[in-house]
């Protein structure tokens, strides 16, 4: 094997490893959404179930935050796309001396930590409100308005970058021709520049919405007393987690893939049209652009994922989650019984040996053997209370190494069960 081959193999291996790092966490998270266990995990796998999607939909706080996030997202698109467009047009007309300064200022909005942007927006409008003696109901103190302003500050820079890259390919001769032929400035803008920028407007809008939807650092300060999906998520994730968050992730990943797919198709269409236009005298053939998406791997992959998802959903119809849960429950109980039997046998053996040597204190050995005493050792385990509450509705946790692992998060669930027996 030549050294070039080895090099190529290592590179391929590295690239595969890299994409595993990129997608592994997302895939694992998505799968945990379908595990009926109360704690998001891959193994041990309990039952395939879609109940966590139901839990998610019935979560009023989450849905409320989701609604606010949507409102904010659309508002941010409406604010930041015009700003980004103005910024990009401005940049193209500034003199060479001023341009770097302007560019630096606009890019700084991205580089300044989101936390700082959120704080400064909050303080600024608070002071403004004080200056105008505005009441607490006015927009100076409205979490949603402030969040739209705070997010737009840096999202406008994203949209501006999109417009800049599109404007670089714009032929200013077109504009001059229109003006020479007697069009007004506004006509030129509407009939020449805007149609040219149309795809960029679309991309910028999608980008702005997604950036707004996933933002946390700025939002958490500017949102004041309201809540968005991300702030609700943050408080949920910090205090105990359950797979309904994975279910949300599945939905968001699905939506993102769909948006990415549509975006890709549109972009390809656009490119194909441009190539066709460049070939003099050739009319744009819709046929070739329609057929094209199926020749590249991206849509095929997405389609495959979709089909597989549909297939599993269909398969799952004829499958009873409750039945499976009862089975798993039984299995665990058996397993646990075996364990406790074994343990009892061991204790007995120990006791016997101790008795035979007759040197030990009998009280202590009974203490050791007494079931349940050691269980109080973990009353401070992190998710105890949660477990207690949840154990009413979800099936008890596995028992396998209760005694070695007293601080494991879902201990108590198991204990509650064992005390019932």
């Amino acid at each position, binding site marked *: 094997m030549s050294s070039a081959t080895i090099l190529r193999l290592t590179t391929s291996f590295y690239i595969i490893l890299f994409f595993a790092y*990129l997608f592994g966490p997302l895939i694992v998270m998505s799968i945990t959404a379908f595990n009926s266990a109360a704690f998001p995990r891959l193994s041990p796998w309990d039952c395939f179930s879609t109940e966590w999607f139901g839990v998610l939909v019935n979560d009023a706080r989450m849905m409320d935050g989701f609604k606010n996030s949507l409102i904010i997202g659309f508002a941010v698109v409406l604010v930041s796309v015009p700003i980004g467009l103005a910024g990009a047009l401005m940049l193209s007309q500034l003199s060479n001396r001023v341009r770097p300064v302007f560019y630096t200022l606009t890019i700084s909005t991205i580089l300044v930590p989101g936390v700082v942007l959120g704080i400064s927006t909050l303080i600024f409008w608070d002071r403004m409100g004080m200056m105008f003696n505005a009441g607490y109901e006015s927009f100076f103190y409205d979490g949603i308005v402030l969040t739209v302003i705070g997010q737009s500050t840096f999202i406008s820079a994203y949209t501006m970058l999109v417009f800049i890259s599109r404007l670089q390919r714009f032929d200013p001769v077109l504009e001059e021709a229109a003006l020479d032929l007697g069009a007004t400035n506004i006509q030129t803008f509407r009939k020449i520049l805007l149609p040219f920028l149309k795809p960029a407007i679309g991309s910028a809008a999608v980008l702005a919405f997604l950036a707004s939807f*996933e933002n*946390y650092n700025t939002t958490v300060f500017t949102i004041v007393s309201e809540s968005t999906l991300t702030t609700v998520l943050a408080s949920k994730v910090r205090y105990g987690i359950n797979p309904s968050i994975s279910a949300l992730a599945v939905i968001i990943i699905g939506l993102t893939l769909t948006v990415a797919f549509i975006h890709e198709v549109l972009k390809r269409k656009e490119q194909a049209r441009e190539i066709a236009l460049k070939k003099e005298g050739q009319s744009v053939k819709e046929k070739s652009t329609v057929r094209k998406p199926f020749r590249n791997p991206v849509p095929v992959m997405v389609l495959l994922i979709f089909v597989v998802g549909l297939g599993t959903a269909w398969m799952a119809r004829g499958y009873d989650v409750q039945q499976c849960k009862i089975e798993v429950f039984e299995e665990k109980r058996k397993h646990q019984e075996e364990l406790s039997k074994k343990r009892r046998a061991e204790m007995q053996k120990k006791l016997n040996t101790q008795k035979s040597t007759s040197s030990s204190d009998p009280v202590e050995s009974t203490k050791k053997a007494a079931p349940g005493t050691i269980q109080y050792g973990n009353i401070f385990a992190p998710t105890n209370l949660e477990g207690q509450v949840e154990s009413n509705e979800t099936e008890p946790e596995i028992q396998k190494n209760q005694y070695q692992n007293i601080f494991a998060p879902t201990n108590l669930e198991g204990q509650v069960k064992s005390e019932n027996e």
Partner: protein
Amino acid sequence: MIIWFQKFFERNGVVLSLYMLIVTFIWIVVMFVLPQIFMFDFSFRFNWTQIDPSKIGGPEDIYTLQHYKFLLFGSPNNPDPFNIVDVSVFARTILAAVFVTLFDVILCYPVAYYLAHVAKGGVTRLMMLSLVVPFWINELLRAFAFRILFGEEGTINNILLFLGILNQPIDFVRENIALYTGLGYAYILLMIFPIYNAVESLDRNQIEAARDLGSPWWRIHWRVVIPYAKPGITSGCTMVFMLSAGALALPQIIGGPSSLWFTQIIYQWFNTGSNWPRGSAYAVSLLVICVIFVLLIMKIFKVKFGEIGR
């Protein structure tokens, strides 16, 4: 200046000119610069909103350095020579951000090079798209994913235990391994694209020439590709550094229980501490130190600020 305005209005017409001027003014001045100035101003004030709101704007509403002093030296009856908790958290945050940045450079440079010069058409597009998709998944959800992976009963621990590599689960969260991998993961895209943009424009003939002259692959990178990609690498580093130093969600969710991130302290002053001026003082310090740090790095590597974000 006036001539420029005349030309500007002549070229764009009144309506468009006003649109551009007013909108960019609102964006840059009202939405960005003024709030920063107000925050800076606010960080030098007493916390009257909590102590006695009637004194705001009164004769006692004067400037003070107490919040910056607090950051450095702690409360007046602090026995230590300086505020050990906050200062060490600050230092650790900067250091960890540097570490995350280095991790991302090393991780992303080969991929960016591969995308620009090795991969062919369709594969490149597919890889580009797969790079972008995880970036648009909510940051909190990504943090959540890392919690599932790195938890004490998480997937990685289970796999390692199953394979017999470990006898006992490792607490990745407490060791901050989860946090660093999570932060590195979050900003991969911001590192790859600048490097990719820089490397892509490199003339392949230069690489061929170096190879023909007998240079091994690592020297080609060291002497030809990396010097050429320097602006891209620096701008990627700047973004990753600034964003990971200013990250809040990831440290909150997968940070170890004993180690704070500086942004978390700021957050505490705003929320539970109810001391906005002190929070702003901390935020200003973070911003200033980060900017100085970045400018210093740029000076060392001789890269101009205007090249960032391209």
